[in-house]
């Protein structure tokens, strides 16, 4: 998010504790982002009903929209567009380890449990 559109509320969190805050402006921004989130939730539902020819594509599109929504929440609602370096360092490790964990299922392909073992 561009620095110029930053809300006084978000700004006040870090720089000036007693700075006056434009409450109406802040709430307007939050409502706008909330509206986008609702809109994209509706789009997720609608997209799930469309047949893209392959179910994998449906899953991909659904997860892409969810990721975009998560980006909106974390950047604007959680102020990650304007945070101190330490937080990004913590999150960098989280992303690396989180992503590694999500790809653990590759192991299931490389070392599958054979049906004969379970019989």
């Amino acid at each position: 998010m561009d620095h110029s559109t930053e809300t006084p509320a978000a700004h006040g969190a870090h720089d000036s504790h007693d700075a006056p805050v434009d409450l109406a402006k802040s709430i307007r921004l939050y409502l706008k982002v909330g509206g986008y989130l609702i809109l994209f939730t509706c789009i997720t539902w609608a997209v799930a009903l469309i047949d893209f020819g392959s179910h994998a594509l449906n899953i991909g599109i659904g997860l892409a929209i969810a990721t975009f929504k998560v980006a909106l929440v974390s950047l604007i609602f959680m102020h990650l567009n304007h945070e101190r370096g330490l937080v990004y360092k913590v999150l960098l490790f989280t992303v690396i380890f989180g992503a590694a964990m999500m790809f653990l299922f590759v192991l299931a392909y490389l070392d599958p449990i054979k049906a004969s073992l379970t019989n």
Partner: protein
Amino acid sequence: MEIPYTVTARPDTGLYNAKVGIWLFLASEVMLFGGLFSSYVFLRIGADFPWPRHELHVLPGFINTMVLIGSSVTVLSAWASLKARRYGWFQINMLITLLCAAAFMCIKGYEYYGKFHHYSVIMQDGSVLDGHRPSDHPENYAPESHNGDKVALTDVNAISLNLAKSEASFLKHLRVSAAADKPYAEAPAGTVVKVRTPDGTEAELNQDWVKSLKKSYRNLENVRSDLAIIKERIDSPAKQIAEMKAAVTGTYPIPFDAAKAEKLTAQAVELRASSKEKIKTLEDKIAELEQANPVAKAATLNLQVVGAPLTFLVDERDFAKYNAKEIIFRDDVVLTGTVKNDAIPLNADVIDLRQSKDPEKSLVWKYYPQLKDPFFKHKEEVTGQFVKKHPEHANDFEKDLDWQHEALRVEIEELVAEDVYKKLEEPGEAINIERSDKRFYSNFSPSRSPYYAIYFLMTGLHGLHVIGGAIVLGYFLLTGRAMYKRNPEHLANRVEVGGLFWHFVDLVWIFLFPVFYLL
């Protein structure tokens, strides 16, 4: 003690301490939910059954998404209100946030309730019937009556116990007939069960009596085993000599060691002489114990019911097996009588033949013969549409998961006219599935399939986060005024940290909703 850096930033981190703390905590939370999402992927790609798609009602999940997004906006507004020193606005926004949390949990509860009252029977041939139990219809609700997951045994006149294993816990299944429509009412407290033991004495069958019998039997067995050990020791030399003799003509012959045999014989004689006293004492002790409590002499104890025969209604998970005359419990208790009402009553609403060996001969048609023609007519229609849309699959459409989902899993509502369906859903129209026809029977709880297991695990854990977050935010709302007067920035920071957790809860739901409800 003053906690440092609750309001101002720490120079080295540039952040107030609680913020560093919450981000580290959220990082660990990402790993927690990441692990569960990873498990979900494992379960889904490894599933040996059709992974449920679009089986959950989307609307409650959709409304819950709206509710959480709304609460994220209000929790931010509450924080911004504190920054703007508008305490009234803070209160209003925080209150709305908490109401949203309550609404979320109520909707979740509604969904869970629906799942716990929806049942699924997997037949022996793999066919599946989902539906409701007639006893769950409010007008027909009688919890003490037969419910499908229980087997009723009437005219019980003989009870067999294994004193080495059995407990008296089977007595909790004792039922009495309270009225014509309540044949399986709970036995009132203090109900006495009188039995006759093999030696003709009468006793009151209860926990204490069984416990005392088991104790006597255990004592007796301990002495018997002591005696057996001594006798085995005395017999051991003779056994060894016999083995030595046999080895002479074995595949790998060993010459007979006469000196060793002689030594062993002498050993046996000595042992017999030295143990004589001990054996006598033990034998006397056994005789004494057997006489003191002749009922507990052997492990198996057959009891005859005195007076009117008994009735039991046993939960399926509590017994090991049963036949037309007996219910055998896992702890070897055997009740002998007449099995009644072992069928599973069901008002089906979904027929799923995706796992059926042969849909034409599915066991479902034994119970719903009238639905066979509409089912296959519907299947043909779906197939026609599918092939038209995907001409490349004209020859192998049966392998297509979408086709299977559309053609072989059908809601009965779609097959028949509305009034016919309504009639089928009436308790009186319930089918009675023979227990021998079912392979698996459960409500839509975690035991139904790995899909429902991980659905309840993840949404349940998420729900706990909603409750935890709401408690913290509620605490700020209730106790915030004093802190606001003392140091409003401190309260704002607290609300910011609570809000960050709340956004994380929202963020997890943003993934949970499509993953479980839509994809």
